[in-house]
């Protein structure tokens, strides 16, 4: 064979291979399947970390010291990392959002659960605000007696949103957070809740009374959280006939993609930029601090936003450090418009960078290492121009990000990003 022909064949096959690569566009179905894989991974990780939290709580109950209490608090903070990344699944998937009331409801009337400071003002008109389940083996709500002698996960689930008031939060991360930290009585000043470990001591060491019931409550709330997260893990698990993942993947590509993008935009704009940041700025109120007992709100916001970016990039890093990667919206958009894909990547990166500033400022780390900490509840204090600037920058980047999510929707032939349930008449 002449040299030239050989070369041409080689060249041809090279070109062919190159074309093949360019012509193998990412399929929407593959992206959607990977989306469900991320959901499964995120809820699995949330479940696993909740189990870790329980282990540390058991250690605390076995030996209530400041050390074991602090370890439980650390475990709670770690458990929040995957869960906050899961919130991007809330806004289109009823199965997730319905469970949210049990898992992550906030703000809560802490007087429903345990002792509070004397000047505590519950949500007025909320008869649950001073119920103090831990101190009362039976509760009387307007003539209806509720037996709380045994504090079990089931009883707590029933007590959640008691009387229809969303402030009656008896369960979930924030109930556990309150039980680990106690009330944050520092207003917009520095400091988080200061519950002593002896609140879980038995016998004479017990502080604030009812330690036995408080121990039961903490454990029951954690067990309920584990059950609920496990339910969601199963809803997204592959190869489980009849679960939500199966329904979702069978619902049609455009409908499913609309859900994906709607939920991303809803968390970015309405929930995170709006409810959790702009409202907090308008109200200047510590009540608007999402993780108010632990002062962990900066991380809560950071991982919420990262959860949105995960869906675009198709990447998720679990708590154990392992990466999940697969066909992504980014691949899909690159096939349509590399420019738009780049803008989106930049927008998600900018949001994380702005949130990193918030995290550094809150923890007095990085460029703020020489300063004192400024937690989210201090940033929103009236007249704190530095805090307003930091939060304002994050809001601005989230608005820009949402604009690009809308552009992405258009590029995918989604004309309107609305929740897409069909009327059933």
């Amino acid at each position, binding site marked *: 064979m002449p040299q030239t022909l050989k070369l041409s064949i080689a060249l041809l096959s090279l070109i062919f291979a190159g074309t093949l690569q360019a012509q193998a566009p990412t399929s929407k179905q593959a992206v959607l399947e990977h989306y469900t894989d991320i959901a499964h991974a995120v809820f699995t990780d949330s479940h696993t970390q909740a189990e870790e939290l329980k282990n540390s709580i058991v250690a605390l109950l076995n030996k209530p010291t400041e050390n074991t209490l602090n370890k439980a608090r650390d475990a709670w903070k770690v458990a929040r990392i995957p869960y906050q990344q899961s919130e991007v699944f809330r806004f289109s998937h009823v199965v997730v959002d319905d469970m949210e009331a049990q898992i992550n409801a906030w703000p809560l009337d802490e007087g429903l659960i345990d002792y509070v400071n004397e000047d505590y003002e519950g*949500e007025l*008109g909320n008869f649950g605000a001073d119920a103090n389940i831990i101190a009362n083996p039976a509760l009387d709500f307007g003539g209806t007696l509720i037996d709380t002698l045994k504090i079990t996960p089931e009883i707590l689930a029933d007590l959640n949103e008691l009387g229809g008031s969303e402030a009656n939060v008896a369960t979930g991360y924030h109930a556990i957070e309150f039980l680990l930290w106690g009330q944050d009585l520092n207003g917009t000043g520095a400091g988080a809740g200061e519950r002593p470990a002896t609140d879980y001591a038995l016998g004479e060491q017990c502080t604030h009374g009812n330690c036995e019931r408080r121990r039961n409550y903490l454990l029951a709330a954690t067990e309920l959280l584990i059950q609920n997260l496990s339910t969601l893990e199963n809803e997204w698990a592959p190869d489980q006939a009849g679960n939500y993942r199966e329904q979702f993947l069978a619902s049609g590509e455009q409908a499913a993609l609309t859900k994906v993008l709607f939920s991303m935009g809803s968390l970015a704009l309405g929930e995170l930029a709006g409810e959790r940041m702009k409202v907090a700025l308008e109200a200047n109120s510590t009540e608007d601090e999402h993780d108010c007992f632990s002062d962990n709100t900066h991380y809560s916001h950071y991982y919420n936003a990262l959860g949105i970016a995960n869906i675009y990039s198709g990447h998720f890093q679990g708590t154990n450090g392992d990466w999940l990667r697969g066909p992504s919206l980014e691949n899909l958009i690159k096939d349509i418009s590399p420019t738009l894909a780049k803008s989106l990547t930049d927008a998600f990166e900018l949001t994380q960078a702005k949130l990193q500033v918030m995290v550094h400022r809150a923890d007095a780390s990085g460029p703020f290492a020489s300063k004192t900490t400024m937690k989210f509840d201090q940033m929103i204090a009236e007249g704190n121009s530095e805090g307003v600037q930091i939060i304002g920058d994050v809001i601005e980047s989230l608005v820009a990000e949402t604009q690009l999510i809308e552009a992405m929707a258009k590029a995918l032939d989604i004309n*309107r990003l609305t929740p*897409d349930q069909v009327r059933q008449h």
Partner: protein
Amino acid sequence: MLNGKVRKLCAALIWCAALGLNNSVVASENNNRNAYSQPDGQLPLSQKLDFHVGNSFFRNPWISAPATTDARDGLGPLYNTNACQNCHIRDGRGHLPKSATDNSVSLILRLSLPAKNTAEKVRQSQHGPQAVPAYGKQLQDFALPGVAAEGRITLSWSALTVNFDDGDTIELRRPSFEISDLGYGPLPRDVEVSARIAPPMIGLGLLAAIDENTLRTWSDPEDRDGDGISGRINQVKLIGHETLSTGRFGWKAGQPSLAQQNAAAFHGDMGLSSRLFLKQACEPIQEQCLAMTTGGTPEVSDNILDAITFYTHNLAVPSPTRITLKNKGTLKQGRTLFLEAGCQQCHKTSVFTGTSSMPWLEKRLIHPYTDLLLHDMGAALADGRAEFSATGQEWRTAPLWGIGLSKAVEPQATFLHDGRARTLLEAIVWHGGEAQSARDKVLSMSRAERQSLISFLNSL
């Protein structure tokens, strides 16, 4: 949103247009319990953040002053509830208490004294209903600790049965309200009491944008065309203005703007002052009420009142039911029956909006099924309480758009001003006065026809 197939079907059926199946007005498609809580489909993204801020203040509770939550303190001392959303449940309708012991949270009782002479009548028409000494114009059945609530509302029912021409019957229930445990002495014998249920919040900015001239064209106060339908514009007080303005909002169109409606609700229902109602909602003899700490002056900051006003302008109307091969026969028949009965004489099907301070609400073809005018609805529905130019027998035509989702949003939702109607059919049968002839035509329909009519209403 319509797919190509349905759009073609619509082209074939002219009535699709009147049903509102038009992409330009479709706002949101959502049949779940949040169907009334979506932002208007044309709301620019740059403004959506304001919508969410307003939503937060609409939803979250207010607390008593003083509190660290400075922005949200000042509740009461006398109040009916502590959050907008408690009555406008998920931005939808309220309901009467299920049983006598239930808390009557989404219900208020308006109080007043009748105008007994010409001078009082003139005063009423210029300034609204006359307050009841010691109680004001509304009964507040909650109070902060240390203050006596004004009273307790007890509800009782009487049943009555109405026959359809085909022999079917329908049972109606009429509520009566007793006020006990009066906190500030006996009420006058001739006190007027009007019960009101919270109305849904959808499409209000679009209703605000309907041109006044359009309302004037629709109105026919002397019934010159002799069709038995008069239709009057309520002329009401716009705070800060000497002359009266066109009323649009409230069961008797007693409020001219959403800003004033919202401020009045903050004041009357939650005891919160704002720039429009600066005084505490306490009567002169309510000394404990007057002595309580306030949450600042005003308690609702201008920012928050504006955010709420923005929010209440921009709640989307859910899109109408999709027309399918399966339902088109029923819906078409229901629509024909609706028109033949003359319902559209007041429940106007289509109109273009005029100008608005929010440009995306302007020049839109909308299908609100209301004329925003007052009509005599007969003795059975009358509350006997005049409100500016509205008589005790007149009510504003209620918008019907989105009404089919009322119970998806709140399963206990009820209809008519005092929530007496459990179903749309009950509500229709209660119609009287100018609507008597339309109501009688419904009574003469067959069961199948009535079902088509209701399906049509549920599709709007």
